[in-house]
């Protein structure tokens, strides 16, 4: 018996979050910062899905493999999955707006480096 599956998933998710943070803090290019944000997003989704896993559970879809009476004992928690669908949509929306802003900034400054935007820096 090796490492539990949800632990592997959770550690992977947290590692992705850390890589994303490192990318956001270490890079000056706006596109790379957005990629870092997406990595954080994906990592957190993985962590959320991992918390829904129940040992030995299967997908919460009733079919030949999982009868209605078995559903409450042999299936994983459906709530985190439903929440993550919401989170993915919101993450997509934020990324799309950020990319649109990046395009506007590139139009205005002809560069994607955040060093060009110092007037709002304190």
């Amino acid at each position, binding site marked *: 018996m090796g490492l539990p599956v949800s632990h592997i998933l959770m550690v992977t998710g947290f590692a992705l979050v850390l890589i994303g943070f490192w990318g956001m803090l270490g890079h000056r290019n706006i596109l790379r910062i957005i990629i870092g944000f997406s990595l954080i997003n994906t990592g957190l989704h993985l962590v959320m899905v991992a918390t829904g896993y129940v040992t030995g559970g299967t997908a919460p879809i009733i079919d030949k493999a999982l009868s209605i009476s078995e559903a409450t004992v042999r299936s994983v928690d459906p709530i985190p999955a439903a929440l993550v669908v919401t989170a993915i949509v*919101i993450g997509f929306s934020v990324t799309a707006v950020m990319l649109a802003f990046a395009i506007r900034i590139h139009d205005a400054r002809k560069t994607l480096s955040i060093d060009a935007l110092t007037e709002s820096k304190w």
Partner: protein
Amino acid sequence: MTKRVFSLLAILVFAFIFAGVAGGYSERQTLSPLARHYLTAVPQDLGGANVVTGILITFRGFDTLGEVAVLFMVAASVGILLGGSPTQNRTNQAPRPSELVENGAKIILPLIFLFGAYVIMNGHLSAGGGFQGGAVVASGVMLLVLARPGTGLHQGFLSVTESLAGVIYVVLGICGLWFAGGFLDSHILPKGEFGSLASAGAIPVISALLGIKVGAELSVVIDRFRS
């Protein structure tokens, strides 16, 4: 240099917190009472085989409506941000796509759209649903835009389609208020035979509307980014 050290420090602090969370987590052995309620209520009360779709479309239906509104807002704000920008005349000199993309798209595009429709319509029976299928359809639109840079998406058609889907969605919700237990209650249509395509009350209808709406909205976003 000090900046590097500071960001490394921040990462280390986060790593410490995450290690604490992951180390203290033990895999769950039983479901929470709420999850058990959903797992019995969705198949027996609503008649849907996919519990996640049942939660998304009925129990958290209002939330899903809000999500679609967020997507609409994004399409609008991306339009405002990118509309009338000086990059608009750049599309004319877009390079031709490679032979592979151009010919591959001809074969694979109908399959992608078919698969998207399948995922949308089988949301209540198997893995899938409106959001997922809509995203598949939009990825097909993305491929279309890449393979034929000249094709213009009909913005008016897309916005009319998605507004119509949204209006019907809300009307169905209000029907739930009238004929069933509450806003977006899926009991307004008969439950049907468990596991067949026309089952689970209004869930497949709402799922299809969601799929149309999401597909159209994402296509609008893709098109805005292209011009």
